[in-house]
Protein backbone atom coordinates (compact mmCIF):
# COMPACT_ATOMS: atom_id res chain seq x y z
CA UNK A 1 0.00 0.00 0.00
CA UNK A 2 1.16 3.51 -0.82
CA UNK A 3 1.59 5.77 2.24
CA UNK A 4 -1.13 8.40 2.68
CA UNK A 5 1.54 11.12 2.79
CA UNK A 6 2.37 10.57 -0.89
CA UNK A 7 -1.22 11.10 -1.96
CA UNK A 8 -1.51 14.23 0.18
CA UNK A 9 1.71 15.70 -1.20
CA UNK A 10 0.59 14.98 -4.77
CA UNK A 11 -2.72 16.64 -3.93
CA UNK A 12 -0.91 19.74 -2.64
CA UNK A 13 1.25 19.88 -5.78
CA UNK A 14 -1.79 19.65 -8.05
CA UNK A 15 -3.61 22.30 -6.01
CA UNK A 16 -0.59 24.61 -6.27
CA UNK A 17 -0.43 24.12 -10.03
CA UNK A 18 -4.14 24.90 -10.20
CA UNK A 19 -3.65 28.13 -8.25
CA UNK A 20 -0.76 29.10 -10.51
CA UNK A 21 -2.81 28.43 -13.64
CA UNK A 22 -5.64 30.46 -12.11
CA UNK A 23 -3.49 33.56 -11.63
CA UNK A 24 -1.25 33.17 -14.69
CA UNK A 25 -3.61 32.22 -17.51
CA UNK A 26 -5.47 34.97 -19.35
CA UNK A 27 -8.10 32.97 -21.21
CA UNK A 28 -11.30 32.80 -19.18
CA UNK A 29 -12.02 29.19 -20.21
CA UNK A 30 -8.56 28.04 -19.09
CA UNK A 31 -9.04 29.87 -15.79
CA UNK A 32 -12.24 27.93 -15.36
CA UNK A 33 -10.40 24.68 -16.10
CA UNK A 34 -7.82 25.47 -13.41
CA UNK A 35 -10.68 25.70 -10.89
CA UNK A 36 -11.65 22.16 -11.90
CA UNK A 37 -8.02 21.12 -11.39
CA UNK A 38 -8.09 22.49 -7.83
CA UNK A 39 -11.36 20.65 -7.11
CA UNK A 40 -9.76 17.44 -8.38
CA UNK A 41 -6.76 17.94 -6.09
CA UNK A 42 -9.07 18.31 -3.08
CA UNK A 43 -10.96 15.18 -4.12
CA UNK A 44 -7.70 13.24 -4.14
CA UNK A 45 -6.98 14.31 -0.56
CA UNK A 46 -10.55 13.33 0.45
CA UNK A 47 -10.20 9.82 -0.97
CA UNK A 48 -6.70 9.40 0.50
CA UNK A 49 -7.89 10.24 4.01
CA UNK A 50 -11.00 8.11 3.54
CA UNK A 51 -8.79 5.15 2.73
CA UNK A 52 -6.36 5.90 5.57
CA UNK A 53 -9.13 6.11 8.16
CA UNK A 54 -11.02 3.11 6.80
CA UNK A 55 -14.23 5.15 6.61
CA UNK A 56 -16.24 5.91 3.48
CA UNK A 57 -17.48 9.40 4.42
CA UNK A 58 -14.70 10.97 2.38
CA UNK A 59 -15.77 9.15 -0.77
CA UNK A 60 -19.37 10.30 -0.31
CA UNK A 61 -18.11 13.88 0.03
CA UNK A 62 -16.17 13.43 -3.21
CA UNK A 63 -19.40 12.49 -4.97
CA UNK A 64 -21.03 15.68 -3.65
CA UNK A 65 -18.03 17.74 -4.77
CA UNK A 66 -18.34 16.23 -8.26
CA UNK A 67 -22.06 17.11 -8.36
CA UNK A 68 -21.33 20.70 -7.31
CA UNK A 69 -18.53 20.91 -9.89
CA UNK A 70 -20.89 19.77 -12.63
CA UNK A 71 -23.48 22.39 -11.65
CA UNK A 72 -20.78 25.04 -11.40
CA UNK A 73 -19.42 24.14 -14.84
CA UNK A 74 -22.86 24.46 -16.41
CA UNK A 75 -23.57 27.88 -14.90
CA UNK A 76 -20.01 29.14 -15.37
CA UNK A 77 -19.88 28.21 -19.03
CA UNK A 78 -23.21 29.96 -19.50
CA UNK A 79 -21.65 33.09 -18.01
CA UNK A 80 -18.62 32.68 -20.29
CA UNK A 81 -20.86 32.50 -23.36
CA UNK A 82 -22.59 35.67 -22.16
CA UNK A 83 -19.26 37.48 -21.67
CA UNK A 84 -18.02 36.39 -25.09
CA UNK A 85 -21.25 37.59 -26.69
CA UNK A 86 -21.21 40.99 -24.99
CA UNK A 87 -17.48 41.84 -25.04
CA UNK A 88 -16.34 39.88 -28.14
CA UNK A 89 -13.29 38.60 -26.22
CA UNK A 90 -12.23 35.78 -23.91
CA UNK A 91 -9.25 37.64 -22.45
CA UNK A 92 -9.91 38.56 -18.82
CA UNK A 93 -7.84 41.73 -19.16
CA UNK A 94 -10.38 43.07 -21.64
CA UNK A 95 -13.23 42.48 -19.21
CA UNK A 96 -12.57 45.61 -17.15
CA UNK A 97 -15.90 47.37 -16.79
CA UNK A 98 -15.46 47.66 -13.00
CA UNK A 99 -11.90 48.99 -13.29
CA UNK A 100 -11.18 52.67 -12.65
Amino acid at each position, binding site marked *: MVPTNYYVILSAILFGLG*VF*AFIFKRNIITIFMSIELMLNAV*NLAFVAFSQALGKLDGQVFVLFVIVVAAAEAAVGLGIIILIARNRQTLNVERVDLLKL
Partner: protein
Amino acid sequence: MGWEMTASLVVFFVLAALAVIGALSLIIQKHPIHSALSLIVVMVALAGLYLLMGAEFVAAVQIIVYGGAIMVLFVFVIMLLNAGVEEHTSISKMAGVPGLLLVVALAGFVAAAIARSAASVQSVSQSGTMSSTKEISGMIFKDFVYPFELTSFLILVAILGATVLAQREKS
Protein backbone atom coordinates in the same frame (compact mmCIF):
# COMPACT_ATOMS: atom_id res chain seq x y z
CA MET B 1 3.87 -8.13 0.87
CA GLY B 2 7.11 -6.51 -0.29
CA TRP B 3 6.47 -7.28 -3.95
CA GLU B 4 2.93 -5.98 -3.76
CA MET B 5 4.18 -2.82 -2.05
CA THR B 6 6.72 -2.06 -4.80
CA ALA B 7 4.21 -2.79 -7.55
CA SER B 8 1.64 -0.34 -6.15
CA LEU B 9 4.39 2.22 -5.53
CA VAL B 10 5.47 1.98 -9.17
CA VAL B 11 1.87 2.38 -10.34
CA PHE B 12 1.46 5.35 -7.99
CA PHE B 13 4.55 7.13 -9.27
CA VAL B 14 3.63 6.56 -12.91
CA LEU B 15 0.12 7.93 -12.38
CA ALA B 16 1.37 10.81 -10.20
CA ALA B 17 3.92 11.80 -12.84
CA LEU B 18 1.18 11.65 -15.49
CA ALA B 19 -1.06 13.91 -13.39
CA VAL B 20 1.68 16.47 -12.69
CA ILE B 21 2.80 16.51 -16.34
CA GLY B 22 -0.81 17.02 -17.42
CA ALA B 23 -1.24 19.90 -14.96
CA LEU B 24 2.02 21.51 -16.17
CA SER B 25 0.88 21.06 -19.75
CA LEU B 26 -2.38 22.83 -18.90
CA ILE B 27 -0.32 25.86 -17.87
CA ILE B 28 2.22 25.72 -20.72
CA GLN B 29 -0.18 25.19 -23.65
CA LYS B 30 -1.29 28.39 -25.32
CA HIS B 31 -4.49 27.14 -26.96
CA PRO B 32 -7.46 26.38 -24.68
CA ILE B 33 -8.33 23.16 -26.51
CA HIS B 34 -4.84 21.80 -25.74
CA SER B 35 -5.31 22.81 -22.10
CA ALA B 36 -8.63 20.95 -22.03
CA LEU B 37 -7.02 17.78 -23.40
CA SER B 38 -4.25 18.08 -20.77
CA LEU B 39 -6.90 18.35 -18.07
CA ILE B 40 -8.49 15.12 -19.33
CA VAL B 41 -5.10 13.41 -18.86
CA VAL B 42 -5.01 14.66 -15.25
CA MET B 43 -8.52 13.38 -14.59
CA VAL B 44 -7.86 9.92 -16.03
CA ALA B 45 -4.64 9.67 -13.99
CA LEU B 46 -6.57 10.61 -10.84
CA ALA B 47 -9.18 7.96 -11.65
CA GLY B 48 -6.33 5.44 -11.79
CA LEU B 49 -5.14 6.62 -8.38
CA TYR B 50 -8.66 6.15 -6.98
CA LEU B 51 -8.65 2.58 -8.31
CA LEU B 52 -5.28 2.06 -6.63
CA MET B 53 -6.84 3.18 -3.35
CA GLY B 54 -9.74 0.75 -3.77
CA ALA B 55 -12.34 3.47 -4.44
CA GLU B 56 -13.71 1.94 -7.64
CA PHE B 57 -17.06 3.77 -7.56
CA VAL B 58 -15.41 7.18 -7.24
CA ALA B 59 -13.05 6.22 -10.08
CA ALA B 60 -15.97 5.31 -12.35
CA VAL B 61 -17.82 8.55 -11.48
CA GLN B 62 -14.62 10.52 -12.07
CA ILE B 63 -14.28 9.10 -15.60
CA ILE B 64 -17.97 9.39 -16.48
CA VAL B 65 -18.80 12.78 -14.99
CA TYR B 66 -15.47 14.63 -15.11
CA GLY B 67 -13.75 13.03 -18.08
CA GLY B 68 -17.03 12.63 -19.94
CA ALA B 69 -19.68 15.21 -19.18
CA ILE B 70 -17.78 18.21 -17.81
CA MET B 71 -14.90 18.08 -20.28
CA VAL B 72 -17.26 17.60 -23.22
CA LEU B 73 -19.04 20.75 -22.01
CA PHE B 74 -15.70 22.60 -21.97
CA VAL B 75 -14.64 21.39 -25.42
CA PHE B 76 -18.09 22.23 -26.75
CA VAL B 77 -17.91 25.80 -25.42
CA ILE B 78 -14.36 26.24 -26.76
CA MET B 79 -15.54 25.20 -30.22
CA LEU B 80 -18.74 27.24 -29.96
CA LEU B 81 -16.89 30.44 -29.10
CA ASN B 82 -14.07 29.64 -31.55
CA ALA B 83 -11.49 30.41 -28.83
CA GLY B 84 -8.06 31.23 -30.19
CA VAL B 85 -4.55 31.39 -28.78
CA GLU B 86 -4.46 33.44 -25.60
CA GLU B 87 -2.50 36.67 -25.57
CA HIS B 88 -0.32 37.88 -22.72
CA THR B 89 0.59 41.48 -21.98
CA SER B 90 4.06 42.21 -20.60
CA ILE B 91 2.61 42.89 -17.15
CA SER B 92 0.81 39.56 -17.00
CA LYS B 93 4.05 37.79 -18.03
CA MET B 94 5.94 39.55 -15.24
CA ALA B 95 3.27 38.57 -12.74
CA GLY B 96 4.16 34.92 -13.37
CA VAL B 97 7.48 35.08 -11.52
CA PRO B 98 6.27 36.20 -8.07
CA GLY B 99 3.16 34.12 -8.64
CA LEU B 100 5.28 30.99 -9.14
CA LEU B 101 7.25 31.67 -5.95
CA LEU B 102 4.06 32.20 -3.96
CA VAL B 103 2.51 29.02 -5.37
CA VAL B 104 5.61 26.95 -4.47
CA ALA B 105 5.39 28.37 -0.95
CA LEU B 106 1.67 27.60 -0.76
CA ALA B 107 2.04 24.01 -2.02
CA GLY B 108 4.95 23.37 0.36
CA PHE B 109 3.06 24.82 3.30
CA VAL B 110 -0.10 22.84 2.59
CA ALA B 111 1.82 19.61 1.97
CA ALA B 112 3.86 20.00 5.15
CA ALA B 113 0.84 20.85 7.29
CA ILE B 114 -1.36 18.03 6.00
CA ALA B 115 1.39 15.42 5.72
CA ARG B 116 2.20 15.97 9.41
CA SER B 117 -1.40 15.27 10.36
CA ALA B 118 -1.52 12.36 7.89
CA ALA B 119 1.40 10.73 9.71
CA SER B 120 -0.71 10.46 12.85
CA VAL B 121 -3.60 9.07 10.81
CA GLN B 122 -1.55 6.31 9.23
CA SER B 123 -1.58 3.91 12.18
CA VAL B 124 -5.32 3.34 11.68
CA SER B 125 -4.95 2.33 8.04
CA GLN B 126 -5.86 -1.12 6.83
CA SER B 127 -5.89 -2.84 3.47
CA GLY B 128 -8.27 -1.17 1.05
CA THR B 129 -10.19 -4.29 0.09
CA MET B 130 -13.64 -3.33 1.29
CA SER B 131 -16.59 -3.59 -1.06
CA SER B 132 -16.96 0.15 -1.11
CA THR B 133 -19.67 0.57 -3.76
CA LYS B 134 -22.31 -1.25 -1.74
CA GLU B 135 -21.45 0.61 1.45
CA ILE B 136 -21.32 3.99 -0.36
CA SER B 137 -24.82 3.43 -1.73
CA GLY B 138 -26.01 2.59 1.77
CA MET B 139 -24.45 5.77 3.14
CA ILE B 140 -25.84 8.00 0.39
CA PHE B 141 -29.40 6.74 0.77
CA LYS B 142 -29.39 6.48 4.59
CA ASP B 143 -26.96 8.84 6.32
CA PHE B 144 -26.69 11.47 3.58
CA VAL B 145 -30.17 11.28 2.11
CA TYR B 146 -31.08 14.97 2.70
CA PRO B 147 -27.86 16.33 1.13
CA PHE B 148 -28.38 13.87 -1.71
CA GLU B 149 -31.89 15.15 -2.37
CA LEU B 150 -30.60 18.72 -2.14
CA THR B 151 -28.07 18.00 -4.89
CA SER B 152 -30.91 17.16 -7.28
CA PHE B 153 -32.40 20.56 -6.47
CA LEU B 154 -28.99 22.16 -7.05
CA ILE B 155 -28.69 20.51 -10.46
CA LEU B 156 -32.19 21.69 -11.38
CA VAL B 157 -31.28 25.27 -10.44
CA ALA B 158 -28.03 24.99 -12.42
CA ILE B 159 -29.87 23.76 -15.52
CA LEU B 160 -32.39 26.59 -15.28
CA GLY B 161 -29.62 29.14 -14.66
CA ALA B 162 -27.54 27.96 -17.61
CA THR B 163 -30.57 27.99 -19.88
CA VAL B 164 -31.58 31.50 -18.84
CA LEU B 165 -28.02 32.83 -19.09
CA ALA B 166 -27.19 31.37 -22.48
CA GLN B 167 -30.42 32.10 -24.31
CA ARG B 168 -30.40 34.81 -26.92
CA GLU B 169 -32.11 38.02 -25.88
CA LYS B 170 -35.35 38.80 -27.63
CA SER B 171 -35.23 42.17 -29.32
